[in-house]
């Protein structure tokens, strides 16, 4: 099952289990069905529960909050993370605060799906991911799946969570296939996943960066470097215990974020690890992420913009002070850097 199918599966299950689940957003019932993620929902659950909308992001988020107050469990979809910047007020000043600000009397079960663009010249305003902002907003949960399987499980948990959840989907995850459990399968929010145990170094990553980290693991395992890879799953709340336990064991940390490294989840992780694992650290922790720079459109300018498995290997090589011949890997790369695979022909 690929990523959109997993999302679609989760939506179908949620909507079957609970009549209060609603799905709306620009294009949810158009021919493309949000890259297939909302396929057949309208046919199966009716046009009242699955509906297209005007281009009015701020009101649409407010309407979701109102639906939630009225007893529904809305799922709003935005085709790009960048567009939701129009609705920050409704998310931060209303949805996130409602439960606490009104004496914990009414909660807001509300999922906002945000798709992060990447590649093929998405450029300055179609490839941003400000998940770190939302991770700084008390009252929100921020979920970042890294595979079809956890996407399904996390989306089901998000829909049935009693709080507003920002659900961040990287577009490049969409083509990954894996076996996904059938039925109402849930992955808990707030719990990181230890993808591989290891003792030399801890790698913490999220979203598509976990895919790159997994690729790096294949190579590193061959070289007998024992890495512990932790995928965060959720960046608010962060599963600090799992992180501290791992770093206390390995004494080394690379924290990778799938957006700019500046003021990122990776920065916060390092800051807290410093506080909690100070005496156990063998090396200074390292952060990775995109440059603190506006993303350009040109093919030439996005080369090396994203960390990949090679740059991860490179970091590890310098952290452990060993030579891992990552330069050879670079020469082997065939797919252009700005597409997820050669089958991709643009423009979206």
């Amino acid at each position: 099952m690929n990523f959109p199918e997993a999302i679609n599966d989760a939506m179908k299950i949620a909507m079957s289990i609970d009549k209060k689940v609603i799905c709306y957003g620009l294009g949810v019932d158009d021919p493309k069905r949000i890259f297939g993620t909302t396929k057949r929902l309208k046919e199966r659950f009716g046009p009242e529960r699955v509906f297209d909308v005007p281009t009015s992001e701020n009101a649409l988020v407010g309407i979701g909050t109102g639906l939630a107050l009225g007893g529904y469990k809305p799922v709003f979809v935005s085709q790009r993370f960048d567009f939701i910047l129009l609705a920050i007020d409704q998310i931060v000043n209303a949805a996130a605060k409602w439960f606490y600000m009104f004496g914990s009397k009414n909660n807001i079960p509300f999922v906002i799906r945000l798709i992060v663009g990447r590649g093929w010249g998405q450029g300055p305003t179609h490839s941003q991911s400000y998940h770190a902002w939302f991770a700084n907003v008390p009252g929100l949960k921020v979920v970042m799946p890294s595979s079809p399987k956890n996407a399904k499980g996390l989306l089901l948990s998000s829909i049935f969570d009693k709080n507003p959840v920002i659900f961040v989907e990287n577009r490049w995850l969409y083509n990954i296939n894996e076996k996904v459990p059938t039925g109402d399968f849930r992955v808990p929010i707030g719990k990181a996943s230890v993808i591989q145990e290891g003792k030399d170094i801890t790698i913490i990553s999220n979203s598509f960066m976990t895919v790159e980290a997994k690729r790096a693991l294949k190579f590193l395992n061959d070289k007998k470097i024992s890495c512990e890879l932790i995928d965060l799953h959720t960046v608010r709340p962060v599963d600090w215990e799992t992180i501290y336990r791992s770093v206390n064991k390995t004494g080394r940390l690379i924290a990778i974020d799938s957006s700019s490294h500046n003021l990122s989840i990776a920065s916060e992780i390092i800051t807290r690890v410093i506080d909690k694992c100070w005496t156990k650290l063998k090396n200074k922790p390292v952060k990775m992420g995109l440059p603190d720079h506006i993303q350009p459109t040109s093919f030439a300018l996005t080369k090396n913009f994203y960390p990949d498995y090679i740059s991860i290997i490179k970091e590890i090589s310098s952290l452990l002070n060993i030579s891992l011949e990552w330069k050879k890997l670079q020469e082997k790369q065939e797919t252009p850097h700005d597409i997820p695979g050669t089958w991709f022909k643009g423009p979206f």
Partner: protein
Amino acid sequence: MKNVIDYYKKIYYVMKRIRLVEEEISKNYKHQKMRCPTHLSIGQELVGGLISLFLKKNDFAISTHRAHAHYLGKGGDLKALISELYGKITGCSKGRGGSMHLIDKKVSFMGSTAIVGSNIPIGVGLALSIKFDKSNKISCIFLGDGSIEEGVFFESVNFTAVKPTPTLFICENNNYSVYTPIHLRQPSDRKIYEMVESLGVKSFLADSRDINDTIIKFKKAVKFVRENKQPVFFEITTYRWKEHCGPNEDDHLKYRSEKELSEWKKADPLKEIEKVLLKNHLLTNIQIKKITHKIKDEIAKAFDYAEKSEFPKFNSVNIDEYAN
């Protein structure tokens, strides 16, 4: 006509109660125990009265920074209101929200928010939930003339014009946003209700100084929303007597003319209703005294309750920020 007068007695009581509550808040504010920004509705009580007449307990309501009158008109708990201003655990929002964040679920008063315009789409969402429920409730959104200028107002109106929901927008046009008169914010020759009509939502205009007309129109508006499950925009001209935020007068600031203020005070809907009731022998001066006394007694008890209530305790973990 006789019909309408029947409503006067109930509306009088509700408005009088709002007035006395607001006056007591104003009087006591200086003791510095109500430590939060507070926007009074003195002069604008009619809307509180109207909703007490025509809304049902389970109709949704959602309001703004200036919400006391709506909260009370909808039947919100007085003790919980005053306690909220005092920041006590017995406050309707457990002291976390203050004057600008009121809630009373028992009467479907779903909240009031302090970002201009931010309650509007939420009210439309509530109306959409009613539509999905196929119930015959309605959703009331209180808003000021200033909130009209926020894009989200337009987006919300457009949404419910395309996708009809039982929404009643109640716009109190008091001519000011803080100290800025409406003609600096909206074209002078444009009427809000006419503009909204052209956006595709049925609209009404009423003047709070013409009480009969206002009552009749409001009744009609509510009926229309409930029966047709379609939105209505109800604009009512009104006037705020006190300063924008806080317990005092602000005449010395001269952003509005003395004449304007005094004319509006002269036309006070509350006094007008009282006059009509007296004239029609539906109320006597003795009864007024009794009512006043009864309300004042209730208010005194509410303040006493608030004073005596405990303060909440701060919990440094994010407890109560997430529902489980």
